[in-house]
């Protein structure tokens, strides 16, 4: 009995300590960001790695998600003779939920796992330790550029995902299924609000998701056990924890932004 309680206590304390380390890690990251004003080239390289290289998966998934929304929306709305609101359905679901959430999930799988593996291996091969030996702080040089690049890339990718998705929905609805193109755009414009929907959904939500995804990915890499097994474990955890965090925060943000007050 006492052993069970001790185990529970150890587990809780361990989690709490880990959470504390994660917060201190985030503080050091934010503190190191100013260095990037002196060396913006570090940021460019990371933007390429997490942003440009994530483009293909974002473009293709956005297109298909939009096309599926168009098909499914049409199949349901046609019974009510309300196919003209298909544009609203596609645009609102992409802008408010699917765009930010799916982009963040794809980002976690595509770029977050890579970040964890990279940092974890740097730690396992003692590159971070040797930088410290030479009195070079790895936070501004290695971690901060990756963090900031990721936080910038996720909103941009979300914007691209959403725009491509709406175009995909337009393609299926208007060109394939014969919904009136004018009604498609007009109904959309009548219902989608710039500040309430686009700024809240595409920009603020995705920025929060970007901070979460990159923070978790970098922290898991930094905390990984310096073995090949430790790195693989950390990579898996990044994807799992990021996905859960994004879905949980999405509920919270949706309740705050679009909930009934």
């Amino acid at each position, binding site marked *: 009995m006492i052993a069970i309680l001790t185990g529970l206590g150890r587990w809780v304390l361990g989690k709490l300590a880990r959470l504390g380390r994660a917060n201190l890690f985030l503080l050091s990251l934010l503190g190191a960001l100013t260095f990037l004003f002196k060396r913006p080239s570090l940021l460019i390289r990371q*933007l*390429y790695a997490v*942003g440009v290289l994530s483009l293909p998966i974002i473009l293709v998934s956005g297109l298909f998600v939009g096309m599926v929304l168009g098909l499914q929306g049409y199949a349901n709305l046609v019974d009510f003779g309300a196919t003209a609101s298909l544009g609203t359905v596609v645009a609102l679901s992409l802008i408010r939920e699917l765009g930010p959430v799916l982009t963040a999930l794809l980002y976690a799988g595509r770029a977050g796992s890579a970040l964890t593996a990279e940092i974890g291996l740097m730690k396992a091969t003692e590159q971070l330790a040797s930088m410290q030996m030479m009195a070079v702080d790895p936070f501004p040089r290695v971690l901060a550029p990756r963090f900031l690049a990721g936080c910038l890339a996720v909103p941009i*990718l979300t914007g*691209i995902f959403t725009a491509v998705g709406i175009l995909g929905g337009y393609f299926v609805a208007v060109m394939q299924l014969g919904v009136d193109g004018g009604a498609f755009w007009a109904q959309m414009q009548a219902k989608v609000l710039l500040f309430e929907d686009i700024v809240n959904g595409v920009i603020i939500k995705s920025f929060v998701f970007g901070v979460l995804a990159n923070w978790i990915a970098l922290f898991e890499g930094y905390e990984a056990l310096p073995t090949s097994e430790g790195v693989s474990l950390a990579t898996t955890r990044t994807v799992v924890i990021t996905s859960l965090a994004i879905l949980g925060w999405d509920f919270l943000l949706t309740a705050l932004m679009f909930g009934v007050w």
Partner: protein
Amino acid sequence: MRQKNLELMVGVFVALGLAAFLLLALKVSDLTRIGENDGYRIMAHFENIGGLKVRAPVTLGGVRIGRVISIDLDSQSYEAVVTMSIDPRYDRLPTDSSASILTSGLLGEQYVGLEPGGMDSYLSNGSVLKLTQSALVLEKLIGRVLTNTASGDTPPK
């Protein structure tokens, strides 16, 4: 050279992102209509507004000429006060125009339809429409039909 290529790709990436946001703002959202609140405001009192919502369109002859900007309750007369902003291009609406709350289609949203009157003076900022027709509330309509049937006042076949 390598650094330059990287910069080019990142530039393309950021430009794509900006283009996406521009598309969302201009083509998808209501940005092009944000200036609409600049119009002049007219008010109308309704007994019952049904399901009318703020931002619902105001039309005349089926053409959208404005938007509902606020809905309040007059605590004296217990009537709903609907304030509408009308596009300044349409500044020659007669003062005896009437407003009614209509529904687009069977399941569509409700909007305010204006019917022009015949006076020579025109509506301006702060005018109040005298002639209004409330929204049709389905329950009341059914209730009326039922009372008519019960009192043996059946319409001729």
